[in-house]
């Protein structure tokens, strides 16, 4: 029963969220601010994770290919496809769910318990639209760029690891990247990351918006935001993969 209640309240909140902003100039200013806070400030962790994951995928693939009949270019192929299809859109989104999701839930939750949301409402401002819509918009706009950067850095990490350790020749690795390259895979990854961006920001916004009590409850909302965003991301990952790749 509680599950149905939360689903219903989540969609009601979305209905309030998707309203025209009070002032478009203010809205765009907020979107730019959020793009910086959510996107640019996440580049560091995304870069580190992507570089090392790309390197690890390369080394693990090389370690597991001991059959001389399998060409070395498979390592580059596996690294590129792992990064493009799964790591960059899904795992990076899960990392962002932890970083951005907890941030959004605690920010909005603190505003709720300190009556700042009530203050907005009394001024005649739609708080859901004012607080959550710019975050959703910003995440959906900036996350594809983050994912593309992650793809590039991951493949570069794999290339660098292969080159420094000598498990794969440079030419073989590049051949592997180009082998059977499907541009639709990138489109698929971007579609996934845009939907995941919506999931992260809307679920975290919901958790923060309906926080009550004190700092303990805000912490719990923040945790719930990360947990539920992650679960919904992996669920939608399966659904989208089935819909788009088969």
């Amino acid at each position, binding site marked *: 029963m509680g599950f149905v209640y939360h689903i219903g309240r989540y969609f009601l909140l979305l209905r309030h969220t998707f309203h025209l902003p*009070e002032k478009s100039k203010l809205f765009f200013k907020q979107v730019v601010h959020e793009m910086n806070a959510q996107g640019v400030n996440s580049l560091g962790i995304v870069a580190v994770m992507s570089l090392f994951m790309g390197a690890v995928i390369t080394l693990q693939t090389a370690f597991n290919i001991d059959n001389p009949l399998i060409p070395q270019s498979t390592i580059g192929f596996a690294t590129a496809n792992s990064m493009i299809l799964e790591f960059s859109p899904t795992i990076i989104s899960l990392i962002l769910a932890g970083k951005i999701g907890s941030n959004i839930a605690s920010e909005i939750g603190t505003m709720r318990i*300190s*009556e700042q949301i*009530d203050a907005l409402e*009394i001024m*005649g*401002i739609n708080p859901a639209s004012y607080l959550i819509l710019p975050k959703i918009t910003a995440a959906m706009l900036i996350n594809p760029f983050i994912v593309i950067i992650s793809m590039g850095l991951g493949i570069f990490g794999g290339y660098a690891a292969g080159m420094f350790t000598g498990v794969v020749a440079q030419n073989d690795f590049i051949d592997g990247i180009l082998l059977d390259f499907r541009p639709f895979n990138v489109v698929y990854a971007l579609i996934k990351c845009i939907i995941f961006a919506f999931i992260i920001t809307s679920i975290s916004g919901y958790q923060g918006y309906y926080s009550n009590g004190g700092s303990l409850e805000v912490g719990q909302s923040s945790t719930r935001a990360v947990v539920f965003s992650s679960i919904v991301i992996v669920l939608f990952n399966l659904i989208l993969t089935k819909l788009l790749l088969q």
Partner: protein
Amino acid sequence: MIKLLNVCKSFEGRQVLKNISITFEAGKTNLIIGKSGSGKTVMMKSMVGLHEIDSGEIIFGEHSFSKMSFKERKEVRKEIGMVFQGGALFDSYNVEENVMFPLSVFTELTTKEKKDRVNFCLDRVNLVNVGHLFPSEISGGMKKRVSIARAIAMNPKYLFCDEPNSGLDPQTSIVIDNLIHEITQEFNITTIINTHDMNSVMEIGDKIVYIHKGERWWEGDSQSILTTNNEEVVDFVYASKYMKQMRKI
């Protein structure tokens, strides 16, 4: 003027407001007093629409607020200023941006005009050279004053203050009280204040309503509250031993 007609409100079967009817007049400082948990805050939040009432009517001027649509309420809310117990200032904005916020959202004023208005409001609450400071960098009394400045930025017709003196020392409390009282008279605002503070009651109470267990128990002014024989009110006003002795004298 704000009128409450037979207002009832309950939470999960527990009735918090019982058939309350009161009229708050413009240009007067109306005080709602009562013990903790008597329903004062619920009444104030119901008046501004943060809680939906179960039955009855809340009338702002000539219009029934409780029967209005979301859009209509939005228009009335532009005429409402509210000072929250904790200030409710936006943490990510500095003092100037906090006061400027409603002007930026609802008006087409130029930046210079907005800044002039902000400076006027901050001057009015005796705050100078603090525009660049963030809420975390100012004292509790200053937060309350910034909150008042933000509340009056849009020239409201109605001003609601939820325990504006809580957590403040007696002298600062009186400064805040007098400020609200002056603003009320100067701009002919209908001001409603929730308070426990007897100093406020005596200092600025043009009209005082005592709420007890969700009911309008007593109504009067700062003079009649001292002479009333209503037991509940007497217990509230003369709560301390010292005050009880004073009453006997």
